[in-house]
């Protein structure tokens, strides 16, 4: 089936099996290896992308779900102003250890920044509750998102 979508600002047209996992299409066909796979069952958030303005886990979606949609991945986000600030905050708080979960957290946190952005620990914990980290722990990750919220509020 022919599908087309916009990914990180680029329009693509593909001829794919509509039932193939969206994760595989993005990683294997488009070589977007910033999207990670860990559990493959929607539980860990490593494969998070933004699909039409909502963060979702791409391992439980199919290619057909992307048809006509707009997708943003960690690569695309890192080139935006807010994405750069967020990256810097993750960096400053040393929240990334092995780094495997990081792109997922980064995408979800970016979505929180652009849709809410209140530096509230409670809200951030809830927003990021679909992403799992097994080494750094969550405290530093939450701190980096709070820092990013504050920096954006200060307008820096």
């Amino acid at each position, binding site marked *: 089936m022919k599908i087309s979508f916009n990914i990180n600002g680029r329009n693509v047209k593909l001829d794919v099996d509509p*039932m193939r996992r969206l994760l595989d299409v993005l990683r294997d066909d488009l070589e977007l290896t910033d999207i990670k796979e860990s559990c493959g069952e929607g*539980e860990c958030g490593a494969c998070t992308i933004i699909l039409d303005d909502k*963060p979702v*886990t791409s391992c439980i979606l*199919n290619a*057909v779900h992307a048809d006509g949609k707009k997708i943003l991945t960690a690569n695309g986000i890192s080139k935006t102003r807010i994405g750069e600030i967020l990256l810097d905050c993750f960096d400053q708080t040393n929240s990334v250890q092995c780094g495997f979960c990081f792109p997922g957290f980064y995408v979800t946190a970016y979505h929180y920044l652009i849709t809410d952005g209140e530096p509230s620990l409670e809200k951030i914990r*809830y*927003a990021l509750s*679909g992403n799992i980290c097994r080494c750094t722990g969550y405290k530093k990750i939450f701190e980096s998102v709070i820092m990013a919220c504050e920096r954006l509020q200060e307008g820096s």
Partner: protein
Amino acid sequence: MKFIKPSSLPDLFDRLQNYEGRKFFLAGGSDINIQIKNRMIRDEPIFYINHLDELRGIQVVDDTVIIGALTSYADIISSPILKEKLPFFRNSLKLFASPLLQSVATIGGNIANSSPTADILPLLLVLDAEVRLLTRSKLRFIPINEFYTGYKEYVMKTNEIIGSVHINIDAEKNWLAYYRKVGSRQSLTIAKLALAGIMKLKENSITAIKIAAGALNEYPRRLTTTENYLKSKRKEDIADKELKEVLTEDITPITDLRSDKNYRFDVCLNLIKEFINSY
């Protein structure tokens, strides 16, 4: 696995005629893709429906809130209509999976997948919701109470789809409501047990009560013997021994990966007591 993408709802019904037997409808995909991974779906036809927007959205018609089958949990949680009219229902669903799943998972998929643990079912049961089933030429309303007949068995036929879910606008008005989902962690957890209850109290007497549990029986259902026992009882007259006896009649707890029968029975009993004593 045969993939079919209908161009419209009428086209879907036309094409459904060409296939006998079991088939799947790809909505959000959060259950189907796990089932494909685990080889529980092999050759059955899969009809994509997620683009059929007439099956999506929340509206009020007369005294009924109508929620389209493709409406996602995120849409439900952010709906001003539900916030105003059915706040108990709406707030309870925040415990569904995680925000990442909430924007994918649809309510029709949750009902049709018919897991005993589906979060929405105890709530729909106490709110006396109805499911609207559609086929090419007719539609019918089934009270959610009568929808399931056994483990993953339901009255919906293989050429029918869930069109929408209907809840009376006053379904929770003037009721004291309770919902608790017990799992091993707060987010991304499949329920070990979920209990929804609504009741009316006059002084200390229960004048009306509805209780439903999920993850307890082979499909979620109302605990009617328990309800009847509790109805018109004064709170202080509820005896532990009697409550246990009636509850035994209502449930045949399942044992699965997550918990065993005895645990589920005890938790259910405790939640019922917590519900009643919280008011």
